[in-house]
């Protein structure tokens, strides 16, 4: 059914653009040119009007037919039934009455009927001075008809605050395209050699101005649209949507080149009375229409393609450009800065040469751009793989980290060692020792890590594990590697608040009896979280203390969540009385396993962590304070806890933890 939808979309866009473009041509190009001709006593514009009405009639018919086909294809997609089955009153009623698309389509049907009426009036008003006002009215209705297509596409969905910008950009893009591409057929018919040459020259110059204005609007609105639908270069290169968009841009560049030729070279010659220029102009305009038709078909296909911003890009090249490579060396940065300056100066010379008459571009200036570009490409190139820009479907949650830990223990620990330092038992026999994972992993893209784990690292003994681990297992392993690297940062954590170091608190779900399921991430923003991992009976005194002081802790801004380290010693049913809300949560045992990774101190010891472990998570999702082991005096620690909570609450707000934080 997609071919039907794409074809219907393309035909509908084309006919709507044609309707608007023809009217714009009459108002902006033909009428003023003919008014001058009439004053000079030559030429008549009646055949222009006849042509307009014939084209408009067929465009309206085509637009209604393609609009109905689009509606039928959409009803099929929405209901999940094949087109034949979807054509029943119930489904169509739901589509037309209960969806944004349906409401827009009903409105547009009204608009096209209104347009028919106004065009009939225009046709009947030959010789009537009110005709020009009717034409403008028709153009307004046609503009509404064309512009309302913005509500049938990707511009409608997305984040609410951006709605207005997106819709404005989409409508502007449609109208500008209609004014230019839709008016081209009328221009071609004007260039058939049956009209007075100077009138035609006038009209061509006016059309060229219309085209210039349209191109400016197209570029600005097109960039805005691309910003929302694509977002970045990997998405442009690595997705279907991006490839289609690049093809569209290529065709647009072709049209632009032809238009520039027409404006800069051929139109002045036509004005000077050169008849040969007429044929060349006509040919170029036909070529522009051909390229424009390709653009419209691509637009039809773009509408059914997932926007690039919502997909994981597949990188097609062996290399990519990355600033990461030069961040360490200063001389490379200097060289690149110098090369960039040279390129800018050369570009300025090229532009000035292109704008002078006659155009003269010095070869040296072109080399001044090409050589720095080559240097940039050579210095910034890093190896890249199809998954380099992929995003992990697995988030940084305790479950994934615990699964990843299990994979690491079975596949990786032999060479990489328990802490990822490359000191495993098998490492000594390797020709190249594994590098320190905790140093390398934070600086690499997760997509690169995925590829290396799945397919191995070339020229090293690291093998590929794609045959042993599924994709999801590899992504979980990467979450574990992230946690391993952050656990190293965590060795510096003490029982006092220190300046922020990147140690993210793994997210997890938990429940309190009688309350709905919650996640740790939901606590962010307003509250500090005190996580207590306990075992019974060792942690009992401390747990009693916390339960008794729950109200005070909550008033200080903290939420207490106590999770058992092993499922068999849960305090949920132990009947420990408190003065406020319950602090005993139910959570998966993997949560305690994941957090145990952050319990190691600088000297490698984690004495007591297996019995009792406490963390303070700040309001932004970072682990900040840690207490290991059962306290000697529960009372003193509570005073400590309160003072640290207060310090954290007083900290200024900052950006919260973001998953997938790679450059």
């Amino acid at each position, binding site marked *: 059914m*997609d*071919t039907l939808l*794409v*074809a219907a979309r*393309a035909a509908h866009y084309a006919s709507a653009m044609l309707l608007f473009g023809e009217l714009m041509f009459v108002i902006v190009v033909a009428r003023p040119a003919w008014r001058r001709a009439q004053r000079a006593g030559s030429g008549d514009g009646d055949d222009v009007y006849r042509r307009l009405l014939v084209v408009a009639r067929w465009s309206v018919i085509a637009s209604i037919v393609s609009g109905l086909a689009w509606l039928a294809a*959409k009803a099929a*997609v*929405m*209901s*999940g039934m094949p087109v034949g089955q979807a054509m029943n009153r119930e489904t169509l009623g*739901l*589509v037309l009455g*209960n*969806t*944004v*698309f349906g409401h827009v389509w009903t409105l547009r049907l009204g608009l096209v009927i209104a347009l028919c009426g106004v065009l009939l009036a225009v046709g009947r008003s030959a010789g009537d001075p009110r005709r020009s006002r009717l034409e403008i009215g028709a153009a307004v209705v046609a503009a509404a008809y064309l512009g309302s297509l913005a509500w*049938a*596409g*990707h*511009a*409608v*969905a*997305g984040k609410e605050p951006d709605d207005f910008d997106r819709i404005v950009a989409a409508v502007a893009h449609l109208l500008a395209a209609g004014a230019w591409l839709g008016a081209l057929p009328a221009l071609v018919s004007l260039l058939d050699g049956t009209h007075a040459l100077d009138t035609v020259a006038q009209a061509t110059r006016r059309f060229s101005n219309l085209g210039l204005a349209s191109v400016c609007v197209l570029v600005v609105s097109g960039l805005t649209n691309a910003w929302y639908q694509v977002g970045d270069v990997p998405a442009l290169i690595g997705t*279907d949507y991006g490839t*289609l968009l690049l093809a569209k841009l290529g065709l647009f560049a*072709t049209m632009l*080149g*032809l238009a520039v*030729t027409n404006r800069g070279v*051929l139109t002045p010659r036509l004005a000077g009375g050169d008849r*040969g220029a007429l*044929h*060349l102009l006509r*040919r170029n305009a*036909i*070529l522009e*229409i*051909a*390229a424009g*038709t*390709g653009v419209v*078909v*691509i637009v*039809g*296909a773009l509408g*059914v*393609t*997932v926007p690039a911003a*919502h*997909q994981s890009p597949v990188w097609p090249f062996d290399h990519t450009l990355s600033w990461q490579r030069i961040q360490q060396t200063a001389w490379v940065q200097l060289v690149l800065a110098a090369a960039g300056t040279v390129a800018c100066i050369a570009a300025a010379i090229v532009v000035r040469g292109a704008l002078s008459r006659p155009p003269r571009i010095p070869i040296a200036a072109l080399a001044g751009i090409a050589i720095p570009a080559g240097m940039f490409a050579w210095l910034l190139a890093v190896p890249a793989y199809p998954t380099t820009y992929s995003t992990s479907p697995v988030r940084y949650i305790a*479950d994934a980290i615990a699964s990843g830990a299990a994979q690491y223990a079975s596949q990786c620990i032999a060479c990489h060692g328990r802490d990822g330092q490359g000191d495993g038992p098998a490492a000594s026999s390797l020709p190249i020792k594994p590098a320190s994972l905790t140093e390398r992993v934070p600086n690499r893209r997760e997509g690169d890590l995925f590829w290396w784990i799945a397919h191995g690292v070339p020229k090293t003994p690291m093998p590929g594990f794609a045959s042993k681990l599924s994709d999801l297992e590899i992504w979980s392993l990467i979450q574990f590697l992230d946690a391993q690297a952050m656990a190293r940062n965590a060795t510096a954590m003490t029982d006092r608040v220190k300046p922020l170091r990147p140690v993210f608190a793994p997210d997890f*779900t938990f*429940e309190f*009896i*009688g309350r*709905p*399921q919650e*996640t740790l991430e939901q606590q962010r923003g307003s509250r500090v979280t005190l996580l207590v991992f306990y075992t019974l009976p060792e942690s009992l005194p401390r747990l009693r203390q916390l339960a008794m002081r729950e109200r005070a802790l909550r008033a200080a801004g903290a939420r207490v969540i106590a999770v058992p380290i092993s499922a068999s010693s849960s305090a949920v049913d132990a009947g420990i009385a408190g003065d406020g809300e319950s602090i005993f949560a*139910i959570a*998966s045992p993997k949560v305690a396993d994941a957090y145990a990774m952050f319990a190691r101190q600088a000297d490698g010891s984690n004495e007591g962590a297996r019995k009792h472990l406490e963390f303070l998570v700040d309001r932004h999702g970072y682990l900040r304070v840690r207490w290991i082991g059962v306290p000697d005096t529960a009372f003193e620690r509570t005073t400590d806890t309160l003072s640290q909570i207060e310090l954290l609450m007083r900290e200024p707000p900052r950006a919260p933890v973001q998953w997938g934080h790679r450059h």
Partner: protein
Amino acid sequence: MPGIEWRGILRHAPPRTGWASGCLARFLIAALMAMSVSPAGAHGLLDRAAPAAGSAVHGSPPQLKLWFTERLEPAFSKVRVLDRNGKQVDKGDPEVDRADARLLRVSLPKLAPGTYRVQWRVLSVDTHVSEGAFTFDVAP
């Protein structure tokens, strides 16, 4: 791409009219090829769920809530909860929240302990259909 005849323009060479329509034909063929584009795959729009995907809840939840990344069309957005044998156990009243068009809810009766499968199919306001499934456990 056939080049623009720069030399032709400068030397006033007579135009080859048949050549322009050949270009037109070529572009139309390319356009027809573009129409056989792979369909927009159902891209996962699910942001989060409560009960969370893959988690275990203690006690039967009264509702299943699904949050999506885009606003939904209520007329074509559905969700079902099935038990281990594939029998539908939800109350059959999927509803898009009036205040937040990204939230889809369905009520649940008291569920016995076990694994349950959620199947959802939603239509976002930009007319894209998306579907998916996940499981959650109800623990005793």
